């Protein structure tokens, strides 16, 4: 039996959601079979559920607007934006409509909407098809931002986004990760899953065998580079790094970070993200951890951010590699802390 990939897990979760609940409607561009979506995440769904998988024109704003209306009236729509780069075309809908209705209508409505999108680079797609723009949607009141990875169950995360949350969820899938097999065995680590009512989307904490010298905090597409860097640092430098793989990008899962901080007492924290560091996710994570550390009167922590260069992502692969964070950049940042 072949091992299930992230793509297959997401596809199976969508199929199961459609089968389980008539309120689930999947809509987006080029979703219908035989194509099944630009990255094939919805392949087979329109054949199995012809009435509930809707092909939409090239209208990202219209798609999310219509999905918001569906959600207001009792459906649980799952909209696909073909590339995360196009999120701003639906940005007004996410920020000023879907995310606001529940609060501004004084909790009298719910907007259980999921907007899925493939994001990230490393495929040579160039400046407008490679970005990780999700940082611009962090901190929007009423909007959850969630990212799956291959070390947990991506399908379970998507199911949670569709059924367990009554507010809009921006679900960011790294396109390089679609082909990765799911991994539950991670030799050298003790996996701890953190979740709770305040931050329902789980954080995976991979504790090293011995005491952690530091923590690598990452999400989505930076998870595999983090594992590779941690292996190199263990081998070359005898440094033991714990990995914190976040799936709930917003709101920041402070309770998870606090529990990890209290137990790990790291000397160094390095955040990893594929977008430029400025105004980014890593800055928010570091600010949160530092505040928690100060409240706990713990010893000082060295912080570093590993992120992309502040440039449109070049098309040429060598130039793209230079612009995006690599394993060696993580190694260097960690060593810089010690």
């Amino acid at each position, binding site marked *: 039996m072949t091992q299930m990939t992230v793509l297959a897990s997401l596809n199976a979760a969508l199929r199961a959601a459609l089968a389980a609940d008539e309120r689930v*409607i999947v809509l987006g561009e080029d979703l219908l079979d035989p194509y099944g979506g630009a990255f094939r995440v919805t392949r087979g769904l329109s054949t199995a559920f012809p009435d509930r998988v*809707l092909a*939409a*024109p090239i*209208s990202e*704003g*219209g798609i*999310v*607007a*219509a*999905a*918001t*209306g*569906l*959600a*207001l*009236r*009792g*459906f649980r*729509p799952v909209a696909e934006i073909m590339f995360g780069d196009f999120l701003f075309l639906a940005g*007004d*809908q996410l920020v*000023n*409509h879907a995310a*606001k*209705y529940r*609060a*501004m*209508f*004084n909790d*009298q*409505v719910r907007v259980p909407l999921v907007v899925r999108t493939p994001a990230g680079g490393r495929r040579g797609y160039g400046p407008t098809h490679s970005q990780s723009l999700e940082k611009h949607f962090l901190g929007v009141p009423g909007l959850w931002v969630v990212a799956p990875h291959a070390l947990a169950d991506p399908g379970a995360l998507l199911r949670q986004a569709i059924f367990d949350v009554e507010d809009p969820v921006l679900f960011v899938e790294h396109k390089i990760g679609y082909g990765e097999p799911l991994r539950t065995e991670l030799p050298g680590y003790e996996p701890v899953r953190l979740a709770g009512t305040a931050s329902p989307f789980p954080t995976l904490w991979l504790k090293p065998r011995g005491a952690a010298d530091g923590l690598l905090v990452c999400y989505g597409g930076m998870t595999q580079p983090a594992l590779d860097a941690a292996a190199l640092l263990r081998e070359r430098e005898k440094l033991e790094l714990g990995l914190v793989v976040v799936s709930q990008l917003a709101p920041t899962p402070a309770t998870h970070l606090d529990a990890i901080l209290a137990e790990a007492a790291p000397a160094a924290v390095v955040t990893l993200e594929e977008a430029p560091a400025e105004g980014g996710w890593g800055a928010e994570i570091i600010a949160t951890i530092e505040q928690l550390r100060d409240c706990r009167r713990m010893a000082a922590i060295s912080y570093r951010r590993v992120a992309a260069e502040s440039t449109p992502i070049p098309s040429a692969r060598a130039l793209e590699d230079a612009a995006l964070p690599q394993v060696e950049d993580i190694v260097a940042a960690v060593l810089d802390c010690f």
Partner: protein
Amino acid sequence: MTPRANRPAPLAVTDRASPLADHYRVAAAIRSFEQMLLDQFARGRVGGTTHTCIGQEIAAVAVTAALDRGRDCVFSNHRGHGHFLAYCGETFLLLAEIFGRPDGVCGGRGGSQHLHLGNFYSNGVQGGTVGNAVGVALAEKRKRSGAVTCAWLGDGTFGEGLVYEAMNLAALWRLPIVFAIEANRIAQTTPTERQLAGSIAGRCAAFGIPVAETSGTELADLLAAASRAVDAARAEQRPQALVSHAVRLGPHSKGDDTRPADVLQAAWANDPLAALRQRVGAAAEAIDREVAEQMREVLAAALAGIDAP
């Protein structure tokens, strides 16, 4: 006695069978409400902002009267007090909301532009609500509820790209929706001829959406046209557009009218509410007194600080 019992009763709203005098009562109440609101702003008794619909009351009353309130849905915009009051008559809930009171229709969180009650929704960003209305129409079609959705938009809103995405989706998906377009000749301070190329009817026609144009000043004509549009949307399960050409007589917001005095004078000389009042005849005087009394009660109640329920 509960605080609710202290509140002034809602206006009696109208439907297709209502006599003209009853429609006039709602339109006059909307006018009176809006003028009272501007006065309260001028006195500094209320903060924030508001957009009144003075001059456009008849469209709100006629289009809403054509709907079936038991199931139909309404998505309104920034200039939505008339739409809201014609839908539910809840003058106190609206005024309390604008005054930021916890017993306002959205607990004071929404204010003038962000209202929700029953099947009525509004938001203050141009264009986006039209797309949400399309989603609501899609939801109701899939539920087979038989509901029609009414999406209010202005001629100024036609500058927003999402309007065309929404119209395209509504036509492609054959949705029971009526685009109720208030072509009030001005977008904030910009006259229509400086912000809209071609025509509204032509833009709707490009999507194969039937358009009915009305003066927006004759209640009976508007009610007939709106009834035809709503019935067609329901029976044929496809979008319809209805244009009302009534001119905005008041400011965009508060005291920010830049139109020359003679233009405004000419517009007021053709005040459609005054014409409707004449048609109602002798009964209008009593209705006006009744409306004035209601507005005094509503204002007193909103100012009196009734406790939140």
